[in-house]
């Protein structure tokens, strides 16, 4: 690990200003925030990230670490821990998909440490990105190439890929937020703004090193999830190499509002493990609207979701796995008993 200055932030403005002095991509900035540290310290140890200053934002948890549920929606402080949100009774009852994305992620130790804001900003597990002895990685070193294109790419993405990068977005929680049309409150050196959770991550395109639309010094302070008739009939299905404590090979976050005779009024779908960013599957949603949710409808939706998939040597299986994961998630969600 490279030496760095460690500082504690006692105010939001000071933190934002201090980190905002640099330009360019947030992940490459010399000043980085640390919350749980489970992404940042990991990447600093393996020298993928080398900030000169690390600003500990945990003192801000007093103000931005709460979870509040009202009938209009849910407000999750960005410094709330994953375990805290996963165990919250209102989250579990009214937004099961959120609780499940958190429960099924990482381990309890990591969930106790990791924050919701940090979770959204976790970086890919692409082995070439994580090993600096590979010179070709456009995400780490723009313009250097991509070792995964012709390398071992079994876990890489099939949706949202570019010729510059095919790294999978590894998180789970973001899929729930994207499916539920959550919004993020952001504070930064230029003041405050609010964006859709779905707009946080950027497709790799030619600049996989940019990753999100947050600038240096911008802090996520809160996550807002609007209430909706679909949030209770929601779930997250995650398929992994091992049954627990692993990243998704394919996953689906779904939320449904069903009318009489299982007709789909609203379907919200986001996919994980298969895409470069948390992936809202609009084509699949459109394929379901107004239809009775049976196996044929679910299969048609899954077909639509992966129509544009682009495969590489070792990850063709993800198309089929992703489709089946979505079919099962939709049918399971349709069968959920909802207590009112």
């Amino acid at each position, binding site marked *: 690990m490279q030496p*760095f200055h460690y500082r504690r932030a006692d105010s939001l403005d000071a933190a934002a200003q201090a980190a905002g002095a640099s330009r360019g991509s947030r992940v490459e900035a010399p000043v980085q925030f640390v919350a749980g*540290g489970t992404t940042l310290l*990991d990447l600093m140890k393996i020298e993928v990230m080398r900030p000169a200053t690390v*600003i500990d934002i945990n003192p801000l948890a007093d103000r931005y670490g709460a979870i509040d549920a009202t009938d209009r929606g849910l407000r999750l402080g960005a410094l709330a821990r994953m375990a805290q949100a996963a165990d919250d009774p209102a989250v579990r009852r009214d937004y099961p998909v959120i609780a499940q994305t958190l429960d099924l992620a990482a381990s309890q130790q990591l969930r106790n440490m990791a924050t919701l804001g940090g979770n959204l900003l976790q970086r890919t597990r692409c082995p070439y990105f994580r090993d600096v002895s590979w010179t070709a990685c456009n995400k780490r070193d723009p313009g250097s190439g991509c070792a995964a294109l012709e390398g071992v790419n079994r876990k890489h993405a099939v949706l949202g890929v570019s010729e510059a990068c095919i790294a999978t977005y590894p998180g789970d929680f973001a899929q729930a937020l994207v499916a539920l049309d959550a919004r993020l409150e952001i504070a930064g050196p230029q003041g405050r703004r609010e964006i859709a959770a779905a707009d946080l991550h950027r497709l790799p395109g030619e600049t996989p090193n940019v990753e999100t639309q947050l600038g240096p010094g911008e802090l996520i302070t809160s996550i807002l999830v609007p209430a909706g008739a679909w949030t209770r009939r929601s779930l997250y299905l995650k398929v992994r190499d091992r049954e627990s404590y692993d990243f998704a090979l394919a996953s689906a976050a779904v939320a449904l509002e069903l009318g009489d005779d299982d007709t789909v009024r609203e379907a919200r779908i986001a996919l994980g493990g298969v895409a470069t960013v948390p992936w809202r599957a609009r084509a699949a949603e459109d394929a379901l609207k107004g239809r009775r949710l049976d196996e044929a409808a679910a299969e048609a939706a899954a077909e639509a979701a992966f129509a544009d998939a682009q495969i590489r040597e070792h990850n063709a299986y993800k198309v089929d796995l992703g489709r089946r994961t979505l079919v099962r998630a939709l049918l399971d969600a349709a069968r959920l008993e909802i207590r009112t």
Partner: protein
Amino acid sequence: MTPDLFARPEGRSSPAASGLDRRSFLGAGACGAAVPLLGPVSADAQAAAPPDIRQPLDLTLTINGRDHRLALDARTTLLDALRERIGLTGTKKGCDQGQCGACTVLLDGTRVLSCLTLAAMAEGREVTTIEGLAGPDGTLHPMQQAFVDHDAFQCGYCTPGQILSAVACVNEGHANDPAQIREYMSGNLCRCAAYPNIVAAVEQAKAEMGA
């Protein structure tokens, strides 16, 4: 050049250390600097020279109820501070990357990975390691005893982490049946695969812990 926003406020002193033992006394350097807070951006702060990046931080860590005052490089993890500086080698280093659970300790009673926690981030919090689990008279914690009773280890390398994780698992209310124990203990890998015995040990200790 970017203005320096991090100058140490004048006259800020480190918290007084109590209960210094020989080891932590040796570990404490004379040149440590208290962790500067990021204050509001002031003209003063901008004028000051940047501190030396290698200057150690003057930290007080509370481990198993005892304060240790240490001068530590900012890079030091809680795991390395425990093992290399304080001499508490019960906490193990497996992967050093957050993947195996061998380094599990309790922070204010909550289980965390000490390999991904900066020592500086543990300041002001209560750290419990395997050395702090037994009673003052040496009576083993029910979870330690249960691991012995069920032969819940072979080489023993993962065991301190397993035991601390298991204590927290019971206290969290996540040890209600074998399937739940397996799920909530999945962050602790055991290369010797003592898993069935570990689950049995957790079930026994849970009954004794009255949880």
